[in-house]
């Protein structure tokens, strides 16, 4: 059993403290000063054992600490000194004990704040709070309660000690608990009140403190003991401090989570905006400018690129749309775009602009992908048209024109309104070529530059269609027809007449118009859907009877766009 503070104090003076002991020993050495001090247990703590005439007890707070034995009244001076020294030492020890108690509390609060600062949810904070509190306040049971004013409910988020009825207690006593929480005070519950409350019958000592943030109380901490341990005002103060700290931590955790959620929502919104903006301005366009995000582009950003521009136009759109309501028209165009877009992307291109009855696509990695996409789009439409035929809808046909060349991509507009823009003669030419495909009756028409740009031209079949001087253009353009987008029978026809067509074209350019006309007619007769053959047949036939200039090179000058 450890010694009491008073026992320790007397032992300290007489045994442990050398300086004090020496002074006392000197006093005792004087004449008539013989004396000794004996503990209650009979141990002589100081002085010599022996027979003394008198004895006097040293008491402290009605408790005998030991007996002072002496033979002459003179020695009472030593007893008085001893009493004085004892009193001082006892006070020192008492203060030391109190200071240590406070130090433990500070330590606990320090630990608690460190522990709860790592937690970001109320449940963990509550659990740590109860565990730490029980380390320093004698506790067998504890409850951490939160009041939800919206649902008007009180619920426990942490608990210490076994009490299977705690939930029932909370429900039955909701009104009392809510009133206590609302009052926001801390108190030690008087023993008779504990005894009178059946819900507290497993406890003999109870106190509680509010969970308060500024002037708002949102819960309480209740702790108790199965035995009568008598909580002190200091312990109540400590519980109040702990609860305050815990409440602040819960509030911060709440704010943190709220903040986190807001940040997440904001990020989500930004991500959505980014995703949507990418659909309006293609990410390939942004990337081509050397930027990662649309937020990084500025007015005046530009880059020159080698690209292939593809114009796709729905043939006879007016005829189709005449039979449709504006809404159905829109749905039709969307349905069409939905089918074409993925083919463009799959082949490394992106849609730069929708043009109502068609679109313009850009391919930045050479023209191979552009031509592959063009062929695939025709094939997709052949499938689509079969579906449409079943629904008794008009077939959809497209014309495709392509050109390769330099192009400037950039951000244009003003401070208030920006747009992705492309400036290039290549675009104009591609648009003209697409227009010419109508004139020639071809499904895919491309220029010499575009054909030269193919990495694997052997994958396709071409027919040379001569030179054309488009309206408003200085230089004539060599044109080729890619036949792989045609319907199967037409494609087969053109394939089997490839050589013949080339021969006819050579005759035509050599001004052998009669021979050329015969050959073209031969081709045309075997399949009257062969529009270019028909066109050249007519032109050759016309030229037979016309005066030809000496420098005639077969260039057809277009007078319309």
């Amino acid at each position, binding site marked *: 059993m*450890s010694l009491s503070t008073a026992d*320790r104090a007397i*032992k300290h003076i007489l045994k442990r403290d050398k300086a004090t002991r020496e002074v006392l020993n000197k006093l005792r050495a004087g004449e008539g000063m013989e004396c000794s001090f004996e503990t209650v247990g009979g141990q002589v703590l100081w002085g010599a054992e022996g027979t003394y005439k008198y004895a006097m007890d040293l008491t402290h707070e009605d408790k005998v600490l030991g007996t002072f034995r002496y033979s002459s009244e003179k020695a009472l001076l030593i007893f008085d000194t001893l009493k004085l020294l004892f009193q001082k030492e006892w006070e020192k020890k008492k203060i*030391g004990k109190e*200071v*240590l108690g406070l130090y*433990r509390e500070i330590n606990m609060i*320090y630990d608690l704040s460190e522990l709860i600062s790592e937690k970001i949810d109320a449940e963990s904070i509550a659990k740590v709070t109860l565990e730490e509190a029980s380390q320093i306040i004698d506790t067998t049971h504890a409850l951490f309660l939160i009041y939800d004013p919206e649902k008007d409910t009180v619920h426990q988020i942490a608990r210490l000690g076994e009490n299977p009825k705690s939930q029932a207690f909370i429900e039955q006593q909701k009104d009392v608990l809510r009133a206590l929480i609302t009052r926001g005070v801390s108190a030690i519950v008087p023993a008779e009140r504990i005894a009178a409350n059946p819900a507290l019958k497993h406890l003999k000592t109870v106190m509680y403190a509010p969970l308060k943030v500024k002037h708002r109380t949102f819960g309480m901490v209740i702790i108790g003991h199965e035995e009568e341990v008598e909580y002190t005002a200091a312990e109540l103060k400590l519980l109040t401090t702990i609860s305050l700290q815990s409440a602040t931590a819960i509030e911060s955790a709440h704010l943190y989570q709220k903040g986190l959620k807001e940040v997440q929502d904001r990020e989500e919104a930004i991500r959505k905006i980014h995703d949507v903006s990418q659909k309006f301005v293609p990410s390939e366009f942004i990337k081509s400018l050397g930027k990662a995000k649309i937020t990084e582009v500025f007015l005046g950003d530009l880059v020159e690129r080698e690209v292939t521009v593809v114009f796709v136009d729905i043939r006879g759109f007016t005829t189709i749309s005449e039979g449709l309501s504006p809404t159905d028209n829109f749905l039709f165009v969307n349905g069409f775009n939905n089918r074409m877009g993925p083919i463009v992307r799959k082949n490394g291109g992106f849609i730069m602009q929708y043009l109502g009855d068609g679109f313009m696509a850009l391919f930045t990695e050479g023209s191979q992908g552009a031509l592959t996409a063009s062929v695939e789009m025709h094939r997709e439409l052949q499938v689509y048209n079969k579906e449409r035929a079943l629904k008794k809808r008009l077939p959809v046909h497209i014309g495709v024109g392509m050109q390769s060349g330099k192009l400037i991509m950039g951000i244009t507009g003003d401070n208030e309104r920006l747009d992705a823009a492309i400036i290039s003669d290549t675009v104009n030419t591609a648009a003209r070529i697409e227009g010419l495909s109508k004139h020639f009756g071809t499904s895919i028409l491309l220029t010499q530059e575009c054909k030269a740009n193919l990495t694997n031209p052997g994958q396709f079949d071409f027919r040379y269609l001569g030179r054309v001087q488009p309206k408003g253009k200085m230089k004539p353009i060599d044109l080729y027809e890619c036949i792989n987008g045609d319907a199967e029978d037409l494609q087969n026809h053109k394939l089997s007449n490839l050589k013949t067509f080339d021969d006819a074209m050579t005759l035509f350019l050599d001004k052998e118009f009669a021979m050329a006309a015969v050959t073209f007619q031969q081709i045309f007769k075997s399949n009257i859907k062969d529009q270019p053959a028909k066109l050249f047949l007519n032109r050759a036939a016309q030229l037979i009877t016309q005066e030809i200039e000496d420098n005639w090179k077969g260039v057809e000058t277009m007078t319309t766009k």
Partner: protein
Amino acid sequence: MDKKLLIVDDEAHIRMLIEQTLEDLEDEGVELLFADNGADALKIIQEERPNLVFLDVMMPKMNGMEVCQKVKKELNITETYIILLTAKGQEVDRQKGLDMGADKYMTKPFDPDEMLSIAEEILNL
């Protein structure tokens, strides 16, 4: 032979706290010694050869690091176990303290229970 434990701190209340924390050891026959500066501590260590020293780092005149270095590196007193005490947040000193020959390192505010059990362990009680 009685065991001796030296408590060194320039702050009186810390000395009192450590004394109070370790008072049970007195009942086990351990003599508690005190010093409020590094120079006195060094003198007591040389004269009394305590088994264990709780040595504060931040002290005027001679700080705990210097005392530790003198005891362990210059005087070669190896049988005295030295525990350096420093304020929390100055853990950077930890390695320096150990390099100076300290046997252990504790931060303030210290946990009284932990301090007592460490002292008991080192003193074989």
